[in-house]
């Protein structure tokens, strides 16, 4: 939800209310004149705006943008590359000055980047790399490979005797693919013998993960661990494991508040944490620095790390890190 202009941004931009009441803004929309006082307009697209991770990330970008008295216009392609291009096109028509980009697909986004380039709109990437990074002024994102790697490491440490494990991945989601690769690499590096006895596509969705995992646990009730491609997947696996009355170590990646809250007293063992807040804040601030004429890094890796019951208190469970 984005007002055409933010006439009194200073007043309401301070709080970290990322989830500003959209209806109120709608009302603002109809009441106000077109972009008049020259506030900058930022476009924003991410792969799936209904994913809590991106909800948090968008909130942190919005916070920075609105604290400068500028406007953020977000669109949501719901994981459809074609829609994403359409929407970027519409944003260009609307007249944005800068763009924050997170692609549904690294290659599929390139046409949109071409259009942005042609329209002279500088682009800032976040969380997921695009097929050709030279389009981007700067990119901030977490190391997905590492996020999976730390989970694998932890597992190898906790179960040095090895055993059967399940993986719920998502081959069409690049970030998940990277995480699973990291996870498997860590296991390989550790030298502990784990057998992947079941592997299914959970499309990163809690409900699907729950259903798939239920069946996998029926076929393989003795698994010692389950790796989920993201936190919703891990949560789905947890529900399935509890229903099946088993408690393998369950790992996810994201570091979402929900998973953190459950680390201490459930089968959830760890989450390869990313920090959407840091990513959002970093890329937004980088954008402003660049606009101010400063030199910025082209590639800003954001640390990923493992959160388990042991260190979860450091990060708190009410929000993202």
């Amino acid at each position, binding site marked *: 939800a984005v007002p055409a202009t933010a006439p009194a941004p200073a007043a309401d931009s301070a709080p970290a209310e990322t989830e500003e009441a959209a209806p109120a803004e709608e009302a603002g929309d109809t009441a106000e004149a077109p972009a008049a006082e020259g506030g900058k307009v930022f476009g924003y697209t991410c792969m799936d705006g209904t994913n809590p991770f991106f909800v948090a990330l968008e909130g942190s970008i919005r916070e920075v943008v609105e604290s400068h008295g500028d406007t953020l216009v977000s669109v949501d392609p719901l994981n459809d590359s074609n829609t994403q291009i359409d929407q970027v096109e519409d944003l260009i028509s609307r007249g944005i000055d800068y763009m924050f980009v997170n692609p549904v697909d690294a290659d599929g986004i390139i046409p949109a980047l071409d259009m942005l380039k042609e329209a002279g709109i500088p682009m800032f990437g976040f969380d997921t790399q695009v097929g050709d990074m030279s389009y981007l002024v700067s990119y901030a994102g977490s190391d997905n490979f590492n996020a999976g790697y730390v989970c694998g490491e932890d597992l190898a440490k906790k179960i040095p005797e090895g055993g059967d494990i399940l993986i719920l991945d998502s081959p069409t989601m690049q970030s998940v693919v990277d995480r699973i690769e990291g996870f498997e690499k860590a296991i390989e590096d550790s030298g502990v013998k784990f057998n992947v006895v079941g592997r299914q596509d959970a499309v990163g969705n809690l409900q699907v993960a*729950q259903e798939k995992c239920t069946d996998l646990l029926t076929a393989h009730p003795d698994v010692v661990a389950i790796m989920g491609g993201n936190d919703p997947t891990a949560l789905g696996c947890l529900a399935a494991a509890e229903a099946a009355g088993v408690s393998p170590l369950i790992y996810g990646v994201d570091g979402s508040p929900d998973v953190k809250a459950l680390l201490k007293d459930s089968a959830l063992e760890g989450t390869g944490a990313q920090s959407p807040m840091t990513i959002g804040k970093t890329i937004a601030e980088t954008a402003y620095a660049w606009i101010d004429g400063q030199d910025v890094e082209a590639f800003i890796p954001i640390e990923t790390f493992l959160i388990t019951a042991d260190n979860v208190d450091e990060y708190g469970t009410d929000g993202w890190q």
Partner: protein
Amino acid sequence: MGSKIQKGVVSYFKHNLGIIIALIVMCLFLIVFPTTRSTFATSKNIFNILRQNSSNLFLATGMTMVIILGGIELSVGSVIALSGCVAAFCAVNLGLPEIVGFLAAVLVGGIVGLFNAFFISNTDIPPFIVTLASMNIAKGIVLVFTQGVPIRCMTDAFKYPGTGYVGVIPVPVILMLIVFVLASIIMNRTKLGRHIYAVGGNTQAAKFSGINVKKVKFIVYVYTGLMAGLAGVVVASRLYSGQPTAGDGAEMDAIAAVVVGGTSMSGGSGTLGGTLIGVLIIGVLNNGLNLLGVDSNWQFVVKGLVILLAVYIDWIRGIKAGK
């Protein structure tokens, strides 16, 4: 009395023989196949299948009525998300007892049903459009009010409808039984049931016979909304949370179960018994493919082929029987 039941059972099998055979063949295969021999036919796995497909059955009972009426209902998927989030919201954010949240959730389903029912029974706007609209509206509302963030609720009471047990039988399985019996009574024993078939078979004939066509449509869409609300409760409970994206595409699963079960999309004919088999075919198929460890990409191919085959058997049988 005994012979009446017997007659009913015989007619049931005769009517649905094709898909029953398909289901049995699938089950037999899974029972004898080495990989699944030891897992498929366990009571635990069978309860799993039933539990997993309970929400689809709730939807499919309503969808059966809707499709027999000659209509369609696309909003049930969104309602699952909406009602699930309402249940969790009531329990978590409003601190109400879980049961109140569940009732509120079912009610919310009923309200969406009312919305559909109102337009469908009072105007000529096609059900496809009305429910496409309400699907979007419900989806928008749940996203706006949750901001896309799931609402977790881990209390035992919240987990009960989805994961609890009565004796050895999972609660959703019991709910499934209740809903199926209820829907069967509506369809087979009440005047309303007769009237649903009549309206779907020939609306004009129904009108000329003095049937209140509007009322029939109205009740069916409200019922379907309520069932979607109930499905939302069970799904949310199984997921320990109201998920704003839950139920995505559930309408297609329900429609598929109904159509596989032999109900004609052009209305007027179909049976709940067939729908039950349809739900089970799809359920066993998903379960079997997972138990067999079939690669998820190949699963699509196999699913497509099996569904086609199941209905093909039915068709061949129909030809043989000289239908």
